[in-house]
């Protein structure tokens, strides 16, 4: 349309610039942030630092813990006992979660992690969760047909292996310590860490085979 305002005339082909296309959840978060800043509860700087911290975390942090646990049995015991303490020991920031628990996959037991209520995740050690982790299908099917879910991730679990699903419903965040792949004897800690994927620490995949690196 063409119209005249403030004494000049031009073609308006665009929609007015605004927040119209913003998803409702984003609009709610923005409104909440505005309100908290206005009331002096938080500052813009707090929000920026929080986002910077979260996106600076990555699965490489968790992979360091796993690789160290594979080569150092005493460290593995400490990781399984209290993953926060183990993370601090290697100079990692485990994040604000009150408690992080590592669970060990073995030849006989395989763990996978879900949060059926929302998206609880060991963000301090793995970074932001993948989109599928937050999706309703994963959150509902992980506790009702987990073997089928694993198969869709390409993990055909031996029927003899006990599959345990961990639903992180409260204050504890779970990190899976995957089983060390065969054929990795003699590899260095850094080489081992390169085999440890994000998905293997959620329990929906095995670590990479050494030939894949």
């Amino acid at each position, binding site marked *: 349309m063409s119209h005249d305002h403030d004494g000049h005339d031009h073609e308006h082909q665009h929609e007015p610039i605004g927040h119209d296309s913003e998803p409702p959840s984003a609009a709610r978060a923005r409104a909440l942030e505005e309100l908290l800043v206005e009331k002096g509860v938080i500052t813009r700087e707090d929000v920026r630092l929080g986002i910077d911290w979260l996106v600076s975390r990555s699965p490489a942090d968790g992979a360091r813990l796993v690789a160290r646990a594979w080569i150092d049995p005493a460290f593995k015991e400490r990781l399984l006992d209290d993953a926060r303490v183990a993370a601090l020991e290697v100079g990692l920031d485990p994040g604000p979660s009150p408690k992080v*628990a590592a669970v060990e996959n073995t030849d006989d037991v395989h763990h996978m992690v879900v949060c059926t*209520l929302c998206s609880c995740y060991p963000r301090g050690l793995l970074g932001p969760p993948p989109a599928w982790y937050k999706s309703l299908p994963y959150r509902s099917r992980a506790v009702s047909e987990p*073997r089928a879910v694993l198969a869709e991730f390409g993990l055909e679990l031996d029927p003899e292996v006990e*599959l345990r699903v*961990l639903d992180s*419903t*409260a*204050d504890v965040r779970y990190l899976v310590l995957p089983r060390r792949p065969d054929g990795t004897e003699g590899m260095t800690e850094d080489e081992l860490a390169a085999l440890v994927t994000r998905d293997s620490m959620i329990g929906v995949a095995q670590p990479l085979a050494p030939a894949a690196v």
Partner: protein
Amino acid sequence: MSLEVGQRVRVAAREHPGHHRTPGYLKGRVGTVERCHGSFTNPETRAYGDSGLPEKALYLVRFDNGVPVYADIFEHWLEAE
């Protein structure tokens, strides 16, 4: 209330208006205490600006959902079987 590892417990089947961390699919279900995580502030009051005190004990409970499902349940949702 203090629960022992290995003890059989039932999750309360009650409705709870407002924020809580007990998933609906486990309400009314019987499970086994696997581990005590210690005590944490109560999310049901903390979510509304309260301190969340007194802290509540949090238990890892194993349920048989066809496959074993482990979930963290606060003590005030658990009854000894």
